[in-house]
């Protein structure tokens, strides 16, 4: 177990180090002078230089990289030079939207997908299986932003049940805030649920064909116990892998949905920072998201070991 964990941890750290170099250099390679871009076409050379000095852009590359990494390690993400506030504050402000959104979407997707997947696997080839897998196929194919627009027109423009977008903030109360997250969460969750249910189904099918399941059934074990205890546990590894990937996607990759619902989440923060060339925000937030993805993957690796005891002993 310890060897397994140490190895995973090392891989995670190396990934982070490599990612930091890539993220930093990618932004350095991008052409153009951020100071000029921020001040616009009519700005004088003086004004541009004043801003360059303020931002420390004239310092050598390596100095800036070392400085950046050492600050990241203390969770000092720098100061956004367009917003002029600490990036950490921005990230925290945005996380209170993105985290709940990702978690609601993930919960919805899991709650829908796993029962549907198991149900379909058990009734393989029957009508119920065909219908649910057909629906899943549509869910995979339909782009989530289109589905989001459909939801907006029905539930906001037509029925006036929820706002068409925006986020009032948690200070406006839990219910109004949750209300504005419902549609985006559904729009995010359904395509994910479609994928997850298909994965669950095929993993279950594989396991259900194994000898030990037949044995379990033959000795008269109740159907549900076989299904939920013996089969599901062994089918969980691919499901967990997909779940881990999905959580990372939901947290960082919800840019399109955040745009459609104009939610002030992390995805929009990066998108905005890129359009405004706020390099500090881009670097820090991208790096932070890389760290989150690496962490989630590490947790998934650990959960493999919990689910599958053989991994704990294997070298």
């Amino acid at each position, binding site marked *: 177990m310890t060897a397994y964990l140490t190895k995973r941890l090392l891989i995670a750290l190396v990934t982070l180090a490599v990612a930091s170099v890539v993220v930093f250099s990618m932004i350095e390679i991008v052409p*153009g002078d951020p100071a*000029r871009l921020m001040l616009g076409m009519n*700005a004088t050379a003086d004004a541009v230089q004043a801003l360059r000095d303020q931002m420390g852009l004239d310092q050598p590359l390596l100095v800036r990289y070392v400085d950046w990494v050492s600050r990241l390690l203390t969770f000092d993400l720098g100061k956004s030079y367009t917003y002029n506030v600490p990036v950490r504050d921005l990230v925290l*402000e945005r996380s209170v939207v993105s985290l709940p959104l990702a978690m609601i979407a993930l919960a919805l997707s899991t709650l829908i997908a796993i029962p549907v997947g198991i149900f379909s696997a058990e009734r393989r080839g029957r009508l119920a299986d065909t219908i649910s897998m057909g629906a899943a196929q549509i869910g995979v194919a339909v782009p989530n932003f289109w589905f989001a627009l459909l939801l907006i027109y029905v539930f906001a423009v037509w029925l006036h049940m929820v706002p*068409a977008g925006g986020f009032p903030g948690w200070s406006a109360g839990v219910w109004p805030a949750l209300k504005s997250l419902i549609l985006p969460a559904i729009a995010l969750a359904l395509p994910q649920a479609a994928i997850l249910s298909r994965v669950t189904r095929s993993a279950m099918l594989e396991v259900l064909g194994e000898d030990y399941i037949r044995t379990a059934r033959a000795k008269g074990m109740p159907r549900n116990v076989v299904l939920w205890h013996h089969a599901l546990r062994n089918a969980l590894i691919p499901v967990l892998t997909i779940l881990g990937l999905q959580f990372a996607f939901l947290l960082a990759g919800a840019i399109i949905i955040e745009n459609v619902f*104009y939610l002030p989440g992390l995805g*929009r923060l990066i998108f*905005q920072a890129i359009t405004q*060339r706020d390099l500090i925000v881009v670097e820090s937030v991208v790096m932070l998201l890389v760290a989150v993805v690496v962490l989630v993957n590490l947790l998934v690796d650990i959960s493999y070991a919990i689910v599958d005891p053989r991994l704990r002993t294997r070298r």
Partner: protein
Amino acid sequence: MKSWKTILAAAAIALATSTAAMAARTDLVLGVVLEPPHLDPTAGAAAAIREVVYANVFEGLTRIGPKGEVLPDLAESWTVSDDGKVYTFKLHSGVKFHDGSDFSAEDVKFSLDRARAPDSTNAQKGLFEAIDTVEVIDPTTVKVTLKNPQGAFLYNMGWGDAVIVSPKSADTNKEKPIGTGPFKFDSWARGSSIKLVKADNYWGEPVYLDKVEFRIIPDASAAVPAILSGDVQAFPNMPVGDSLSQLQSDPRLKVVIGSTEGETILAMNNKKPPFDNLKVRQAISHALDRQAIIDGASNGLGTPIGSHFAPHNPAYIDLTGTYPHDVEKAKELLKEAGLENGFKTTLKLPPPPYARDGGQIIASELREIGIDAEIIPLEWADWLKQVFTDKDYDMTIVSHTEPNDIDIYSRKDYYFNYQNPDFNKVIDKLNLTSDEGKRKELYGEAQKILAKDVPVGFLFELPKIGVWDAKLEGLWDNAPILANDLTKVKWAD
């Protein structure tokens, strides 16, 4: 007895609700596309800053009105010396900043000196270049002496970059703007919305609205449902995507197509052959079919222009007929220039759709007269560096959105590489003239010179699509400056 009570109660409720309904609404949610990076117009070029604070939170000595005219603001009146170098402003008294401190001539001196200081990060430092000294005569009189006469000085003082700030709050205006305007800053949920509320004890004419929220909606697919559902009641500069006709057919909404200060031009490098030849530039102008370009690059909206001037401006003259679309004439002119077989050139395009889409159309129009323009798409940063700063280009398409900026053609080292002594003389005269009537004449002259000399191909004025609740009054139809002036906005009863 019981039924009487019920009727009375019902009547009372009916009365209460009807009086509530009769009092006009005083709140407004207004959609904006871009979130401002911060809220200090004296420290950043972003138009999004002005779209929130101009005229609402901050005020200057003068201000720009809905037609692009200069109006008095914090200065109630002024006198100009005969040599055009000394401006004496008489300020309103009893003006307070939102933090309660008094506004006086000292604040004017502070603001102007700060904007033109060497370490100033004001994005329009050029506006203040002509200022020599700023003197406080008494608390409500300030005297500005210029190094040389500048006819546009009063206009310049109306820009968002020239608003008056207090020394106490100048450094924190980015996050918590403190001005003298009719609305004061309330809160800013980053990425989401900015709220203003009516300022108590405003010195000027009281405003109608109590609460205004600027909601940031970057995307057409989100903006349309937001306005259709009533979540947002006004979108003065709206991204409509393909939904314009859907919005126009909705009786609850008013759709206003106005003009902006964005002159969209096909810029040419006037020093680089063959663009240094007037005949070649004339040929290119004849080759351009403005309506086709507007249809393809701007959804058919936008006003054709024949010179560098905004159609809503009182000094505008229509010069679109100077070199009408005429392919034969264009070919003839190229022949006269000794280029009857045409030539190869490049067309560098920045990211906005008007440039990328317009570029395709213009390239095919130029091909008709034998000019083979290779399209090179550039990101903004690259464009600013290659075209704007290094002048390493043949042709480009860009919209010049700064207001009243015809003088850019007289600037030395500007990226057009254009030099015309006659034009510069007119601009010099404009600088010496502050009389509105004479300025109008001179602006006319300047427009005509450019229309004939075509240092660039004049295409069209960028449109502004405003959509708002049909019951809302007082929003600007056109955008002579980028601002959402809410001082006259009210809900009809």
